[in-house]
Every structure is written in structure tokens, then in C-alpha cells.
């Protein structure tokens, strides 16, 4: 592996009421890599992802046990401000969810949180973020039109730009391409690979091909448990566990 762990979970368990969503998962997430989480639907991978930046905090009846360490600090520690966690660990969702504001305001939203900013600084950072999300050239002439008027693929990249603008260290993606057409998906995948060079990316996907294309490491979840984690090529070519093997060959899903 070689690289340092950015995020690490230690015996992480998530319960909804009396149902267990994630059971006892310990996983190292190395820095500046793309980690893919695969598994059949309902296997807890999305729940796991949302536990990483405390997105489940507001939900009623969700209980989290175990630890999630960001650079060695437990994110669920008693004195931790979840808002600060989310500033460093951003998220892109399954369905594109741009705010009903202009493209510019969508990206600037996260930048304005800390207080007022100089217009020139803001402009520059908006441009930078849109550029990283590969959207700048397409929208630079209509920054002040509504973000919801873009196409699905563009909307998802806008959401990515919005997340990138606050310069998080980790980006979590929950099936980001599931609502997109093949061309938009390809576009997004190449972006994700590129982001993996400078950021830590964790992506949940149903699409095994996608996991294989974008990720350096892959983790297989089944019924809330982490079954196997290995370098992507390793896991796909020589899975160690029978369940992994069965899943990869389409035995269930």
C-alpha cells in the first residue's frame, strides 16, 4: 500500500432502530487514491459512506458505534463539530441536486459560508472549481443562469464543482453516475480518476466496470459487512473470498 491512511474506520457499526445497516467494519482509506465500494443493493455501502462525514446525524433512530478517524481524530468524538468534519470531507450525491440558484451562486455557496469574501477572490475560486470539474468551458458564458437548467451530466459536474470549491481533502460519491447517460458517465469517470491524484475519493457504485475503471482499491460489502478489500486489479482478478467471487461472476446481485 505504501501511502498513509487519510480516513480509517475502526469497528464501525450503524443501526437504524433494530436493523443493522453496517456491521463492525474496519477499513483503511489511503490518501490520494480512489477507493470503490461495491456490493449488491442494500448491503450498507451507502450507509457506510454517509457515516464517514456524519451525514446521518439529523436522521431519527440512527445510531453509530465504533470510530471513524480523519487524520487520526475520531470524527464521532464528543467534542467534534460535525460541520468542520463536512468541510473537510465533501459529498456528491446519487441524484444531481444543484441549488435552485445560478451556476455561479451554486459554486460560491460553500465559499460564502465562512463570511463575506472579496468578489475577485470569489470569481477566481469559482472559475478554478468549475475548471477542475471540467465545466468551465461549457458554462463560462452563462454563469448567471440557473444551475437547474443544465443537463443531467452537467448538473452532476456542477455539484462536483460545488463540492470542490471548498477544497475538501476527501470527496465521498454515492453512485454519482447512476442518473447519467453513458457519455456523461464517461466524462465523470475520467474526472474522478483525475481527482484521485490530488484528493482522497471514496465512490459507491453498482457498476463493476466503473469500479474497475476509476479506482485503485476496491472494497466488497455484503449484508452490512466488509467481505474483502484489495487493490482493484487484485480483487477483480483473484478474489480471495467465495462471496466476492460469486458476486463478481454475477452469482447474485
Amino acid at each position, binding site marked *: 500500500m505504501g501511502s498513509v491512511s487519510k480516513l480509517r474506520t475502526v469497528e464501525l457499526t450503524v443501526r437504524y432502530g433494530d436493523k443493522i445497516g453496517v456491521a463492525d467494519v474496519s477499513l483503511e482509506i489511503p490518501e490520494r487514491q480512489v477507493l470503490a465500494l461495491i456490493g449488491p443493493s442494500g448491503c450498507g455501502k451507502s450507509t457506510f459512506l454517509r457515516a464517514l462525514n456524519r451525514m446521518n446525524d439529523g436522521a431519527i433512530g440512527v445510531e453509530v458505534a465504533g470510530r471513524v478517524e*480523519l*487524520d487520526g*481524530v475520531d*470524527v464521532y*468524538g*464528543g*467534542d*467534534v*463539530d460535525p*460541520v*468542520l*468534519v463536512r468541510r*473537510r470531507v465533501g459529498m456528491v450525491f446519487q441524484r444531481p441536486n444543484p441549488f435552485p440558484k445560478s451556476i455561479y451562486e451554486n459554486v460560491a455557496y460553500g465559499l460564502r*459560508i*465562512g*463570511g463575506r469574501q472579496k468578489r475577485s477572490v470569489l470569481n477566481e475560486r469559482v472559475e478554478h472549481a468549475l475548471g477542475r470539474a471540467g465545466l468551465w468551458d461549457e458554462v463560462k458564458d452563462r454563469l448567471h443562469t440557473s444551475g437547474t437548467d443544465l443537463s443531467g451530466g452537467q448538473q452532476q459536474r456542477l455539484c462536483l464543482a460545488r463540492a470542490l470549491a471548498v477544497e475538501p481533502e476527501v470527496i465521498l460519491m454515492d453512485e454519482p453516475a447512476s442518473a447519467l447517460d453513458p457519455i456523461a458517465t464517461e466524462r465523470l469517470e475520467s474526472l474522478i480518476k483525475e481527482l484521485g491524484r490530488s484528493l482522497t475519493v471514496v465512490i459507491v457504485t453498482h457498476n463493476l466496470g466503473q469500479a474497475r475503471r476509476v479506482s485503485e482499491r476496491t472494497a466488497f460489502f455484503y449484508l452490512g459487512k466488509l467481505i474483502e478489500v484489495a487493490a482493484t486489479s487484485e480483487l477483480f482478478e483473484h478474489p480471495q473470498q467465495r462471496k466476492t467471487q460469486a458476486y463478481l461472476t454475477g452469482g447474485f446481485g
Partner: protein
Amino acid sequence: MKAAAHPLARGQRPGLGQERAWHIFLWANTFGLGALFVVAIASLLWKGGAKATFLTWYPTPLSGAPGEQGMRVLLGLCFYGVLGWGVFRLWPGRARLSAGRQRHLQLALIALVVMAALAFNDHLPRFLLLMPKEGSAGGGVGPMLWNTVTAAVVSGLVTLPIGVGAALYLRYYARPSPILSALRVALDTLASLPSIVYGLFGFLIFVVQLRAGYSILAGALVLGLLNLPLVVSVSEESLASVPRALEEASLALGATTAQTIFRVSLPVAWNGILSALVLSTGRVFAESAPLIMTAGTTVSRVQAYAWDPSRGGATLAVHLWYVNNVGLSPDRAEVSAATAAVLVMLIALTNTLAERLRRR
């Protein structure tokens, strides 16, 4: 535990002070608003509740108005019925009984309520039995209660068939046409009119044009009109929530649209429609201006407990206004408090009922 502050620790986010101030402001605003209404409603019940609900040890004498004894029995049924129902619901031992036992208990309670209504109808709260008094203390709201009920029933009889019929037309028969859009505009307009405008209309038609004088019938008709948009929209909503698959299944079996409506859609949507009726009854309890202009503010002694809806008469809400603005009774503070308490309890009852019906 007091380790050096790590980068995720609380209290180091920029703008935190401002955020806290906002939180406190919003909390205080919300709490203040809520507390205001709690205090207002509670003080009202506190001041008037006892007078409006406590049973008396000595019987209340009859006033001699025809039909009074029957009204007392009816009121007794309602009063003891609500009391018994409340006891039954709140009794903690109920959950431990089997369904059959609960059923028996319910029947026994009903029998008890009927007996109490027959035996103790002269011991109901005096305030609910007595005639109002104009110039002296000690008046009650007996006839007002009866007038309120009459107005609610008559207006319900008007609103329900027309409102549900129009909703059925809108849902199942209407096709885009000028008539349809006119109907939508009409409903919007009716919903937007201030109630005093309805009052003026009723006054113009019934009192001025037809020279029929003040009557509860006129008031109820006007209130029925006022409630139409509410009943139509709620009925339409509950019809829209009937699963389409159910209706299609019925049609696929060869049923006509009308048969489908009566056998499938209406039974499913019925609770929602009833909740609309209950809500509109609540509005009949609450309205004053249109009734003052169409049903008048006074009660005639002879007709106090008559069935005839063409008599004039004040409802509870109108009485509350009348006592404070026209009436001369020395105990009007008490009478007002008790009347207001009765009104609020009635409204709370209808609200709970409507909520229950909608949930089902």
C-alpha cells in the same frame, strides 16, 4: 479528556458567535409565539372552563320554552358521551383487556351514558342549560348551543352533496372546457372572499330581497356557500389519493364510471371527505360576521329550542360578540369567558376529529 484542541474540535468555526445569536433569536421567537397561544388558550379555559363544564348538585329549573327537556337529553348524551369516551381512551388498563372485553366495556359505557343522559340531564352545567339574560346576571347559552348545532347541520346538508358532487365532476367527468376553467375561477373567488362579503350577500338576498327576516336557515346557507371551496378541494384531494389501480381494476371488470365511483372511489376517499365536513363544521362554530347579518343576534324565548331552522337566533360565537358589544349583563366577563371556553373546546374537538379521520 482535556486534550489540546484538535482541528475538528467545536468552537473554532468562523462565524460561530453570529450563528449562536441567530439560534437564540429564532428559538426565542418560536417559543414566544407558541407560549403566547398556550397562555391565551389556557387562561381562557381556566377562566371559563369550570363554569362551562362542572356539573351541579341541584337541578336546573326549566324555563318553560317548548322542547327544552328533549334538548337537555340530547345535550346530556353529548356531554356524558364525550366524558365516557375520554375516560375510556385515557384509562390505562384498557390495553390489557381482550378485544371482546373492550367491546363489552364499550357497550356498557354507552348504556351508562344513555342512562346518565336520561336521569341527570337537569344536573348538566347550568351555563349550558340556561337561557341568556339581557340585563341581569346568571344567563347561560342553552339556545345558542342549539342554534349552533342547527346551523352546523343545515350548512353541512347543503355543502356536503354539492361540494362532493362538484369534486366528483372535477375529478371524473370534467374535460378541458371554458366551463371547467370558469368553475376553477369560481372556486378560487369563493375561497378568496372575506366572510363579511358573504354576510352582505346573505343579507341582500334573504333579508332585503326575500323579506324573510333573520333566520338560521339563511345563515346556514351562506355558511354552506362559504365552506364550498374547502369541501370541494379537500374532497378532490382525497379522491385523488385513491389508488388508480383500484379504480382501473373496477373499470376492467366492466363497471361504469358511476359504479366505480360509488363502489370503489367514494368508500376509499370517505374519511377524507368526512374530515372536510368536520372542518367546515368548525368554521360554522367560529364564524360571526355573516351570521350577525343573516341570522341575527338575539333569541326568541318561544322558539329557543324549536326544530324549525327558519327561526332567527345567535350562535355561540355571535353571542360572545353580542355580550361584549351590545349586551348589558353585569356578569358579562364571566359569561364571555365561559362562552369562549365552550367554543374553544368545541373547536378542539372538531380539530381532533378531523385529524383522526384524515390519518385513517
